[in-house]
């Protein structure tokens, strides 16, 4: 490698490194978790449990009270709890099924490639 080439390569790589370093500084690091689906599924289950608990508490409060205001509060509590339960269920379902669908997709891609190889091999 000549001196000129070496100098040219060093300059090129230094410029590219400087550009890369600038890009790295601009990176937004949100900080993912090692297993976000498991965290999401656990969160969904927790939310479901809280939602069901709130709904049941609201129901019991409503049944045991004759006061209109208390009944209104109890209804609000039950509806909120039901909503949380539905959101928690959706969260759990989404995170539970994601891994299953990912493996299903990978298997589909693998089988497609096998088929392509067989077709190409046959020709």
């Amino acid at each position, binding site marked *: *490698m000549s001196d000129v080439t070496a100098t040219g*390569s*060093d300059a*090129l*790589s*230094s410029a*590219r*490194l400087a*550009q*890369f*370093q600038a*890009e*790295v*500084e*601009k*990176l*937004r*690091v*949100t*900080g*993912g*978790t*090692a*297993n*976000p689906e*498991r965290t999401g599924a656990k969160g969904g289950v927790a939310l479901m449990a809280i939602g069901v608990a709130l709904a049941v508490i609201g129901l019991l409060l409503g049944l045991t009270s004759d006061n209109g205001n208390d009944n209104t509060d109890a209804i609000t509590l039950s509806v909120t709890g039901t909503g949380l339960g539905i959101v928690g269920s959706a969260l759990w379902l989404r995170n539970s099924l994601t*891994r299953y669908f990912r493996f299903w997709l990978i298997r589909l891609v693998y089988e497609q*490639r096998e088929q*392509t*190889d067989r077709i*190409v091999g046959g020709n």
Partner: protein
Amino acid sequence: MTSIVPVLELRGVRAGYGPIDVLHGVDLEVHAGQVYALLGPNGAGKSTTLAVASAQIVPSAGSLLLFGRDVTGVSVDALARAGVCVIPEGRGIFPNLSVAENLRMATFTGVSFADVQEKAFAQFPRLGERRRQIAGTLSGGEQQMLAMARALATNPAVLLIDELSMGLAPIIVEELYEHVGRVAREGLSILIVEQFVHEILGVADVAAIMLHGRIVQVGRPASIADELASAYLAGGAGRGAGTNGTSKVADR
């Protein structure tokens, strides 16, 4: 040429798939313009290490650092746009698309398609002859050339290569490693994992042996080559390994 701060660093990385840990505290540093060869048998954790380095897997412990900045948890696409490029095991080309269409995938960095093709066909003339051919019908070596051309067309700063020689004839492997050596001399930082060590040790600046999710030895390629057999047979505890320019990594 080396910089003081590593371009790419894994520090105390533990990672795996679901409940199964594959990496048990991995430390490695790749400096600017350096070729770092990570060697080891099948199942050692080499590909998982690359997956962590490219942000495809978030480690359960430890950090991924670029130029000393902790970027653990960064998104894969952001890292790719910044300049970290992966050539995966099995090439990763789109078998149903043509050579030219596969190369078009490299234009996401803003480089024009014409420039991508010019660069790729200059490096690999054989691809130019087959630009309209469906990639899945190329030979294994040509597919690997296509994968390399596509990766290099993105003008990466760090290149991560997984098992370049897999399934290829020795003469093709030799040709591909000549290309690796050439881009390394241009200053690209390369982390490459391999099972078959003969060719890679000729271009690597640093070599490390990985066994059972841990790096058990690091050193100059010539020294690592001497220790390779004993390291494999010793089962990764560093027993029976010499000290000819290598360092044994304490078992964690």
